[in-house]
C-alpha cells in the first residue's frame, strides 16, 4: 500500500499541505489532470489532422527459410519494421483513448443534462455507437464521410490514422460515458445535498465534490477500455493504417511466413498489454482514498 503523504503528515497544522482549493488524485490536482487530458487529446488530434500521422512503408527484406519449422532469422530481420508498425498502433491507441476519455465525460454530462433536448439525442448517440461495430464505423468515416459534399473538406477528409483515432475516440467514448455514468451514480446522494447546503454552484459541485469521488471508481473500467481499444486498433489495417496487422498482412502475402508474422503480432500485443495492465493496477491503488 502506498500511503497518501497527507496521512503521514504530523498532525501539526503547519505541516506541508495541499491548498484548500485543489483536490488531488494520487498527487495530481484534478483540475490540472482534466485540463491536461483535454489539451493532450486536442493536441493529438491536431497533429494527426495537420500532418496526417506517420505512415510507414514496408519492404521485402528476407524470404522465409522453408527448411525450418520456425524461422528466427526471418523474425529478426523484420523486427524493426514490426516495431515501427507497433509504434503506429500505440499512437492510434493513445490518441484515440485520450479522445475517448474526454468525449466520454462530455457525453456522460450531456446525458445527465436537465434539458431533454440535450440528454435524449446524447442517449441515442451513445446507444447507436455502442450497438454498431467499430469496423463499420471506420468504413463509414473513411469511405462514406468524404462523400458528404456539404461538409467542409478539411472536416471530412481525414488520413487513415486520423480516421482510426477519431473512430476509436467516439467508439470508446461511448463506452467510457457509461463507465462515468456508473461512477457518478456511485457518489452518495448526501454528497450532492451537502454541496447544495453549502450553496456550491454547479461547476464547483462537479469539479470539487462529485468527479473527484466518481473518477477513482471509474478508473478500473477505463483501464479495461484502454486495453480493449488497443486490441481493437488493428482494425485500422482495413483502412490502410500501417499498423502491425497491416504489416503482417502485406508481408505475409509476399513471403508466406504467416506463422512467424502472426506469432510476432501476438507477442507484440502481449509485450504492451501486460505492462499496461500492471501500471493501471498500480495507478488504481494510488488513487483510491479511504472512504467513510
Amino acid at each position: 500500500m502506498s500511503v497518501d503523504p497527507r496521512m503521514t503528515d504530523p498532525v501539526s497544522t503547519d505541516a506541508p499541505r495541499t491548498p484548500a482549493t485543489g483536490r488531488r488524485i494520487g498527487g495530481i490536482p484534478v483540475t490540472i489532470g482534466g485540463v491536461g487530458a483535454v489539451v493532450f487529446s486536442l493536441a493529438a488530434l491536431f497533429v494527426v489532422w495537420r500532418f496526417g500521422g506517420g505512415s510507414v512503408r514496408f519492404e521485402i527484406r528476407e524470404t522465409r527459410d522453408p527448411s525450418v519449422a520456425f524461422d528466427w532469422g526471418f523474425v529478426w530481420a523484420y523486427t524493426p519494421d514490426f516495431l515501427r508498425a507497433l509504434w503506429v498502433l500505440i499512437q492510434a491507441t493513445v490518441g484515440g483513448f485520450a479522445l475517448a476519455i474526454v468525449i466520454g465525460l462530455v457525453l456522460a454530462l450531456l446525458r445527465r443534462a436537465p434539458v431533454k433536448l440535450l440528454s435524449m439525442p446524447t442517449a441515442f448517440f451513445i446507444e447507436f455507437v455502442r450497438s454498431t461495430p467499430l469496423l463499420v464505423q471506420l468504413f463509414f468515416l473513411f469511405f462514406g464521410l468524404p462523400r458528404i459534399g456539404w461538409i467542409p473538406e478539411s472536416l471530412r477528409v481525414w488520413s487513415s490514422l486520423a480516421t482510426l483515432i477519431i473512430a476509436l475516440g467516439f467508439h470508446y467514448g461511448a463506452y467510457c460515458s457509461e463507465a462515468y455514468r456508473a461512477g457518478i451514480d456511485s457518489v452518495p446522494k448526501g454528497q450532492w445535498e451537502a454541496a447544495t447546503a453549502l450553496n456550491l454552484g454547479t461547476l464547483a459541485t462537479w469539479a470539487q465534490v462529485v468527479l473527484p469521488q466518481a473518477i477513482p471508481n471509474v478508473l478500473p473500467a477505463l483501464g479495461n477500455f484502454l486495453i480493449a481499444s488497443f486490441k481493437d486498433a488493428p482494425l485500422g489495417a482495413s483502412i490502410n493504417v500501417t499498423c502491425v496487422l497491416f504489416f503482417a498482412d502485406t508481408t505475409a502475402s509476399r513471403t508466406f511466413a504467416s506463422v512467424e508474422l502472426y506469432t510476432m503480432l501476438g507477442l507484440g500485443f502481449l509485450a504492451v498489454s501486460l505492462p499496461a495492465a500492471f501500471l493501471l493496477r498500480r495507478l488504481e491503488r494510488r488513487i483510491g482514498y479511504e472512504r467513510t
Partner: protein
Amino acid sequence: MSAPEPTTGDTGTTPAVRMRGIDKAWGDNVVLRDLDLDVAPGERVVIIGPSGSGKTTILRVAMTLERPDDGTVEINGRHLYHEEKNGKLKPASEKHIRSVRSDVGMVFQHFNLFPHMSAVENIALAPVKVQGRDPEQARQQALELLEMVGLEKHANHTPGQLSGGQKQRVAIARSLATDPKVMLFDEVTSALDPELVGDVLEVLRDIAEDGKTTMMLVTHEMGFAREVADRLVMFDHGRVLEEGPPAQVLSDPKEQRTKDFLRAVLAH
C-alpha cells in the same frame, strides 16, 4: 440585508424563516399539509414528532433539498422559491434561489463530509468557492472553527480517520464557515454512539449561547431541547400539533398525541 422587505403581517419584525401553506406529498403519502411556521431571528426552535410526521422534510424544504408542492418560504423576508415580478410571485431562477439560500446552512444526520478532503479542506471549500475568499485566509478561519469544535489537532485528517462525533463536529464547523444566519440541524446526534453525543451537543450549546444564529433543530434529545430551545414544536401528520415553551410542552402537553409521543421517547 439589502433585499426589499415584504410586509410581514402582524409581528412587526421580519421572521428569519416564514413558511406559509406548505404542501408536500410523494404520491399518496402526504408529508406536509398546509403547514405554516414562523421562526424569529435568533430564535431556537426544536421540532419533535414521530417519524414520518414531516419534521425532517420541513428542514429539507428550507434548504431547497425538497421542493414544496405548494406554498411559500421566506428567508429573512426574501422569497426562497419565488421571485416577485410586477407584484406577482413567479417561480424563482436558480440564481435567485442561490442568493437567498446563502443565508441558510444545514447539518445532516449522516454528516455528509467530503471523504476525499481533509477536515480543514472540507471547512474551507465553501468560503473559497462560494464566497470567493482568499484560500489562505479561509484556511485560517477553518482552523479557528476547528479549534472552536475542539478538533484543531485533526485539521489534516480525512473523514475516514475521524470518529462519528468528530465527523459531526467537523460538519458543524463546515456549515458555520459561510456564516449562515439560519442553521438547520437534522437529527445530528441520531447516528452517533451514545458516549459521543455529549461533545456534539456541547458545540450546539455554544452556538445557541452565542444567540446570533437562528436555529431549527430536529432532535430526540429532550433534555437538550428543554435546555436550549426557546420554543418546542410538536409535529404530527405534517402539521404543527402543539407548540410552546419547552418546559410547558414537555411537562404539561395539551394534546394526547404529544403525551403518548413523549412517553415513548422518554421511556429509554
